């Protein structure tokens, strides 16, 4: 067990990696998780933040403004160019309705005369489906107002607005169906585990690569090669140490998640949480395999950091843990299927599925694919290590050196 102990010692001699990658990056996941608030389950609508700039004092404008307010999240914004730009830039308002001066009067007049109807101006910060639906609502309100304006030509605008409001007050009765017995897993915890794919890949890969590269460096591997411990045994011990490191990282990330989001998981079935953590564990195996691979490739810590980071970023983005794959095009969604993170994410979603979840066959199938990825990367790492070992141990190289020395 000498090698095993030495490997762990090498790891703990680099507390900075433990701190920066395991602790620090997990905190990033925490921030992400804590930034989302769980919508109550009856909350089924996706409404944008809307600002109404009412430059008109008429009845219709007031009615429209209050209708919009009832159907969105209203933010107050000052009526100035800079304030509007700021609101749009910082996404405080996704949709701004500007009701121009004299709109109510123009509307009534145009409806009566049959001329072109006046328009309200809108500012869209980011085009999205919810903004489109908001736009539809504004049009709906004004369409119904127009109907009433035509039907009640002699009525005052207050009367028209009142009846428009009554009609627009109708809405369909909605029930959100609870398809499972237990409450679903908190979004915050899901997001934390999704982000953990980056954390865990990076921390395990870097930490284990540091250890492996220590033993992989030419001088040390010559020295260990000369010792009476069989090469296989030494390698297995290093592997065992790396596995322990992986366990430490996994346990830390899982424990932190449970500690922080535990209160939000009350009532959730234990098997659902366990299968989420199992998914993370299997993904950790991929991290370990990747760390092994990087450790064989280079012993330059700068390159190790960079390689792990870039693979972590690329797989996290492509795997759909940072951006919903619904939003990217079909080709990207196909490429995504070539990353282990995609299957990890799928496994998580299956584990946390609203209609049950837990240890379902879908979870295991996806985790199986993650295992295959881990095996593949590990095999490539092994091949590299064989090639390197072969080069180092060749008699030819040694004899050349020896003959050179004797010649000197």
């Amino acid at each position, binding site marked *: 067990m000498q090698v095993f102990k030495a490997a762990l010692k090498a790891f703990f001699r680099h507390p900075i990696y433990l701190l920066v990658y395991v602790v620090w990056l997990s905190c990033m996941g925490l921030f992400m998780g804590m*930034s989302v608030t769980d919508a109550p389950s009856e909350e*089924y609508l996706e409404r944008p933040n809307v600002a109404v700039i009412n430059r008109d004092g008429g009845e219709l404008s007031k009615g429209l403004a209050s209708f919009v307010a009832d159907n969105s999240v209203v933010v107050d914004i000052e009526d100035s*160019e800079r304030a509007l730009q700021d609101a749009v830039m910082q996404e405080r308002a996704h949709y701004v309705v500007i009701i121009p001066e004299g709109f109510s009067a123009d509307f009534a007049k145009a409806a009566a005369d049959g001329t072109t109807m006046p328009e309200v101006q809108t500012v869209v910060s980011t085009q999205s489906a919810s903004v489109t639906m908001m736009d539809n609502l504004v049009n*709906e309100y004004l369409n119904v107002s127009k109907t009433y304006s035509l039907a009640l030509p002699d009525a005052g605008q207050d009367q028209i607005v009142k009846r428009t409001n009554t009609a627009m007050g109708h809405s369909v009765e909605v029930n959100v169906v609870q398809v499972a017995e237990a409450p679903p897993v908190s979004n915050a915890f899901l997001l934390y585990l999704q982000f953990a794919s980056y954390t865990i890949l990076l921390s395990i890969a870097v930490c284990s690569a540091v250890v492996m590269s220590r033993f992989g460096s030419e001088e040390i591997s010559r020295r260990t090669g000369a010792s009476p411990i069989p090469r296989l045994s030494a390698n297995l011990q290093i592997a065992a140490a790396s596995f322990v490191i992986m366990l430490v990282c996994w346990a830390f990330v899982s424990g932190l998640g449970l500690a922080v989001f535990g209160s939000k998981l009350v009532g959730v079935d234990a098997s659902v949480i366990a299968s989420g953590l199992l998914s993370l564990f299997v993904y950790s195996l991929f991290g370990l395999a990747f760390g092994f691979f990087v450790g064989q490739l280079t012993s*330059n810590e700068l390159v190790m950091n960079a390689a792990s980071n870039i693979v972590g970023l690329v797989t996290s983005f492509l795997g759909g843990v940072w951006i919903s794959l*619904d939003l990217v095009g079909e080709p990207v969604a196909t490429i995504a299927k070539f990353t282990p993170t995609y299957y990890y994410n799928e496994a998580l979603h299956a584990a946390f599925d*609203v209609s049950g979840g837990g240890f379902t066959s879908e979870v295991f199938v996806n985790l199986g694919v993650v295992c295959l990825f881990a095996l593949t990367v590990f095999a490539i790492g092994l091949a590299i290590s064989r090639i390197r070992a072969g080069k180092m141990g060749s008699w030819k190289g040694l004899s050349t050196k020896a003959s050179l020395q004797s010649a000197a």
Partner: protein
Amino acid sequence: MWNTFKYTVLSIVRERGVVFWVILFPIILATLFNVMFKGMDEGAFELPMIPVAIVDASEGNAGDSFHTTMDALSDEKNGEALLAPTYVKNSDEAYRMLKSGETVGTITLDADGWPSLELSPGEGDVGVSMEQVKRTVLADVVDDYCRSRAAAEDIITNDPTALANPKVIDSFTERTEYTSALAITHSKTKEYVRYFYALLGFAALMAAMVGLTAVGAIQPNISPLGARRVVGGTGRSRMLVGAIAASWVISFSALLVAFAYIRFVLGVEFGGREGACVLGLAVAALMATSLGALIGAIPAIPYNAKSGVLTGLTCLLSLFAGLYGTPALRLADQIANDAPWAATINPAKQVTDLFYSLYVYTDMEPFFQTICVLLVITLVFSLAAALFMRRQRYASL
């Protein structure tokens, strides 16, 4: 000084790890972003087809108007169909479809043909999920039907004389657009450009790796090379100026390469203000150099681990600049709004804001404000670095 400059440049360019970090990394990441967001730009705003089950319990002709609406919404000839309705016999079957995920909702018509809606519960996803969008659209579409019908029935019951006017009847089904979109920002806002800006913020911090390496190489307590150089004839300050100038030149060049790649190869827009962008990059490189010098000068951390510290710092600060996908971007916006000081002291966020302010604002004032903030950050980093470097005692008995 000139020799220090020259050899610092040479030695850093020959360091593979540094070149990888500061040049290759942003390019690889930018390429990835480009692949991902091109699709987002094209197809993201199309509303998806919504599968829905309909249980019709209406009597006589009561459900006719609803069916007409449904037919119009699911007619594929008429532009894009919004709904994909399946008529089912009873609510049990509709429930089975809802549970298995075949549909997102069930519409049940009562005896009078008024609809009610059952929706599947929300499922967590990153940012806004398509499922949530589908539920919203479905509820809105059915709401729209209810409102128009309520208005029509109200008029038929209370003001039957109004029906003599054919315009009124027409207006029941007529849909006029009353909104016109107004552009108030300098460029047409496309959200995905923000990821590229955040990437430049990340690249700027990564470029601190250059300053770190250069400064580490002249610190006698950090590297053996530094120890050797200090006993040489060149004064400390001259060496420092040379090393810092060289770091700045390399960081700036690396950022320029990344910028040029993003702007000209990938075609990401910067609001047509490329000149100002270059100025911004020059300041960002200065900030990066001072940050590198600061971390390079901290005596307590071993040299090898410093790159780890810098990486961790960069990752953390980039999170708050919105690099890591939709949730991170939301988090960054939220922080900028709730705690502006936290955004102000985050150099990654400031570099990101440089480009955003050029892209969004019509006037240049916010851009220069951000430049000033970055210069102040640079000054603070430099002063702190100088404190660490001055009058160090390297070995004492």
